[in-house]
């Protein structure tokens, strides 16, 4: 299983869980599986054109998927997937 780390603004869709274990595959497959168990979360990640929102970065094992294979980036067992939206608070 891979672990997806959920940012605070999306935790209302994940019963306030900050991390969720999902079957490995690709980032897109993980997010599709996440939507099955946590309806509504996909709309927080993807824009109307189906791309990752520009204020969200997704990292697999600390690497930005935009510099890998995007949402088709493979995700292995024990990989960590972080969803990190922009913040500005102080």
């Amino acid at each position, binding site marked *: 299983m891979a672990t997806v780390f959920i*940012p605070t603004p999306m935790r209302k869709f994940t019963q306030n869980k900050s991390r969720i274990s999902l079957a490995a595959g690709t980032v897109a497959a993980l997010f599709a599986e996440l939507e099955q168990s946590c309806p509504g979360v996909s709309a927080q990640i993807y824009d109307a054109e189906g791309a990752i*929102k520009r204020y969200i970065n997704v*990292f697999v094992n600390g690497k930005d998927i935009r510099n890998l294979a995007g949402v088709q980036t493979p995700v292995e067992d024990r990989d960590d997937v972080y969803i990190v939206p922009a913040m*500005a608070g*102080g």
Partner: protein
Amino acid sequence: MNSPAEHKELNELPPLSEFELQLYARQLTLPEFGLEAQQKLKAATVMISRVGGLGGTVAMLLARAGVGSLVLAHDGVIEHENLNRMHLAFREDLGKPRIEVFRETLLKINPDLRLVCEPENVTEANAARLVAQADIVVDGSPSFEERYAMNREAVRQNKPLVMAAMSSLEGYASTFLPGETPCLSCIYPEPPEYWTVLGFPVIATSSVLVATIAAMEVIKLVTGYGETLAGQLLYCDLSSNIFQRMQIERRHDCEVCGAAAQPA
């Protein structure tokens, strides 16, 4: 680009008085730190955008560490909801202009501190002037508009920018070096549509945490001590005790620092 640590030749650095040597005796013994690093801090000027829970903590830590000059920008007056996190303000300060309260507290910490206090937040109109006065810029603003204005000016003036931000119990920090690392617009070209300046939950623990990281980044940039977060985003979540470094890269189509950028 050259870091401030590379700019200052040893013979240009200000000497430390006997009193200062006593003040900083404990940090002078940090491994690989020493007298020259302390002199570089004294010679440094750091601009901080907003001086609240995050930026105010950075200012406080840099004043304690012996940074010589700070340029501060923050508008408004001290309000009740500020006092859960703004270490430079107290209940007796309610209703007073923030920037004057911050100036007074910082001078209590370090009466030798040279301060430039702007009673306004960063805008497109004042960003160039504020950034021009500093060796390094620290961004602690809750406004993306202000953050993007600072980012553009830091890139245009080739100044390092230490970026730190938080929301709820999450936060992150990075160091942007123009021409070498991503800038803010590379990694976050747009703000979230849900973000509002007064809408994010904040408790002092998370703003102080990222402020501490940011202040240390400044000290590293000034002195050359240790490793900075250049090219990395340090993400943390105090609710689940996660600290994770992410690799970040420049975007060639970044409208601020990429090939698509308009010349100044």
